[in-house]
């Protein structure tokens, strides 16, 4: 077998970026309302050059609806896949992911509490749900991992997954209790929990870009430590990794990423779980290659899932989580079966 490079080479970066951009462009051109490719190009070119726009409908649809949404979807996909890959390495656990560990449920609980009790932070008027989602994502992660450590020091797959599933159920029952007391806001909460990327705007795009840039680079610079962790926590300690610090940093970073994503698009499961596995088959297990490749892969996967959600039943939209779960679960079982058979 050909020896793989340690780094993600420039050529590979170019290929992955090109594929992602191609899918992104495709998703901007295709939608529930069909707009001729020529008009789409004109609208975007005019927007970039600042020339007055000709047709009003196409402008509204592309610049105000489709573009911000597609960008949010790509960034969420990248962030979720990246955090999935980092967690799988850190916990040496192929099933680790925001949704299986219950972190996403925790983040939604935070957001639901923020909606139900109208929690707002004076400095950041509309960030109430986001901050609560991040805080709860982190607390959930601490709680689940703490409990798992108590029960099973080796943090084996089954223990963590079981606790994650139990925690998700526990959280959903707490959410039901809150909904029972929320009175007037029941409807808001119910619609929120269904999750939607419909309200994506450029502010969301900025927030996601910021979170992804900061957290992404933090995780990327921990790739060597993650490689050590992937062999085992003791191994990491022996080769001189500050285990506790690295772990804390990675967990906080992952919580921020998942919290931001959940507060913007609701819980989207399976992206973080499946993408790193698919990507690993392409680029191998080295985190210095796996992390950037996962980010690209996640963006492409979620873009395609969102495209399906937008156009399959037009004018009706499917919740994106339904598409990712359906496709993701099947793909995952297939990958799992293939790797185990070998």
């Amino acid at each position, binding site marked *: 077998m050909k020896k793989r490079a340690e780094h993600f080479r420039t050529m590979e970066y170019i290929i992955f970026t090109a594929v992602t951009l191609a899918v992104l462009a495709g998703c901007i051109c295709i939608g529930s309302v069909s707009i001729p490719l020529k008009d789409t190009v004109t609208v975007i070119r005019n927007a970039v050059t600042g020339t007055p726009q000709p047709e009003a409908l196409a402008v509204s649809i592309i610049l105000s*609806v489709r573009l911000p949404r597609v960008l949010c979807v790509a960034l969420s996909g990248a962030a979720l896949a990246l955090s999935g890959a980092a967690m799988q390495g850190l916990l040496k656990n192929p099933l680790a992911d925001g949704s299986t560990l219950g972190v996403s449920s925790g983040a939604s609980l935070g957001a639901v509490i923020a909606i139900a009790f109208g929690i707002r932070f004076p400095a950041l008027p509309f960030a109430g749900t986001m901050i609560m989602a991040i805080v709860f994502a982190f607390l959930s992660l601490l709680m689940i991992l703490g409990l798992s450590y108590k029960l099973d020091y080796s943090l084996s797959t089954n223990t963590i997954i079981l606790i994650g599933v139990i925690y998700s159920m526990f959280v959903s029952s707490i959410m039901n209790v809150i909904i029972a007391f929320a009175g007037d806001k029941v409807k808001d909460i119910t619609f929120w929990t269904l999750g939607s990327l419909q309200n994506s705007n450029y502010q969301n795009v900025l927030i996601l870009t910021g979170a992804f840039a900061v957290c992404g680079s933090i995780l990327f610079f921990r790739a060597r430590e993650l490689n050590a962790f992937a062999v085992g926590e003791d191994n990491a300690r022996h080769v001189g990794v500050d285990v506790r610090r690295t772990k804390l940093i990675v967990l906080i970073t992952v919580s921020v990423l998942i919290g931001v994503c959940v507060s913007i698009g609701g819980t989207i499961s399976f992206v973080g779980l499946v993408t790193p596995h698919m990507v690993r088959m392409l680029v191998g297990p080295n985190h210095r290659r796996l992390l950037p490749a996962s980010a690209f892969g996640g963006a492409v996967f979620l873009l395609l899932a969102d495209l399906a959600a*937008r156009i399959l039943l037009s004018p009706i939209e499917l919740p994106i989580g339904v598409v990712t*779960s359906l496709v993701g679960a099947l793909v995952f079982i297939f990958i799992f079966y293939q790797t185990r058979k070998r």
Partner: protein
Amino acid sequence: MKHMKHVKHTQRKKRMVRTLSILCLLFFALLFTGCTSTDTAAETQDVPAQETAAETQDVPAQETAAGTQDVPDAVTVIDMMGRTITLEEPARRIVALTASDCEILYAIGAGDTLVGRGTYCDYPAEVLEVPAVESGANTNIEEIIALKPDVLLMSDMAQTEDQIAQLEAAGIQVVVSEAVDIEGVYYAIEMIGTLMGLEENAAAVIDSMKATFSDIAQRASGDGSETIYFEVSPLQYGLWTAGTHTFMDEIASMLGLTNCFADVNGWGEISEEQLLERNPDYIVTITMYFGEGPTPEEEILSRAGWENVTAVQNKAILNLQNNELSRPAPRLADGARMLFEFIYGE
């Protein structure tokens, strides 16, 4: 060595089976949650109450007449699932699980007979003083039995045969009220009126509704060329609208308007792009306003990309936030009048 290998192999196999089964469980759990959310939307559409209402519309009045000849105070009704229910005398203690049935009871002047209400009943304000019981999927039979009602009024959404049998064993008559169109609402009012021995009041409520509807339908000058969009959930949580087979749609066509999402059946999440393309002339939102931030109207006016929607340009947005158009109750007439005044002025 060979033996070791074998053991290792079976262990691995076992582990794989275990992990796979966990995965399958996860998968089905997800599938299931996916289904339930779509189900609720579907449920409201498929209820065959329309037929029942149409078939049996004239029957109850006759039967009641026959019943009263035999036993003085006895009342008989056929509920909206086609079940015949006979009471020895008009009901005195009622538990109503749906908000619409509570509204009907108050409208016919039987609010004081209400001894329990579903959690979501909120109109008129007095109803909030009545003890609340869990409704829908969480219906708690014990809670209801403890209130010792003669009759339980509910919709046919979440209750099972077993639950109905349990209630009937406890001496509580279960009456199902499930209206999916305005004809059905008339039937429900008439049925509840008979049940309470208040037929005349019920008839008066129905007549007043009919008068309102025929009045506005006559005065409405629309010819179906103008379109209206009903916003059930704001953009923040994903746009949901009311399509055909909803009260909103029925009232829109009564006013000579076309629902711009008439190709959606019941309630559904719709694409923002489609809305911009369909370009409605009027927008009705039922989003609640909690007194902070922009009002629902302002929020719609400020949405990016909506500047060119006719309704936004004309500021033709109405907020009906007290369920006037979403509940099968007498207030549908109020909602219809508010919509009429909004569109045709005064």
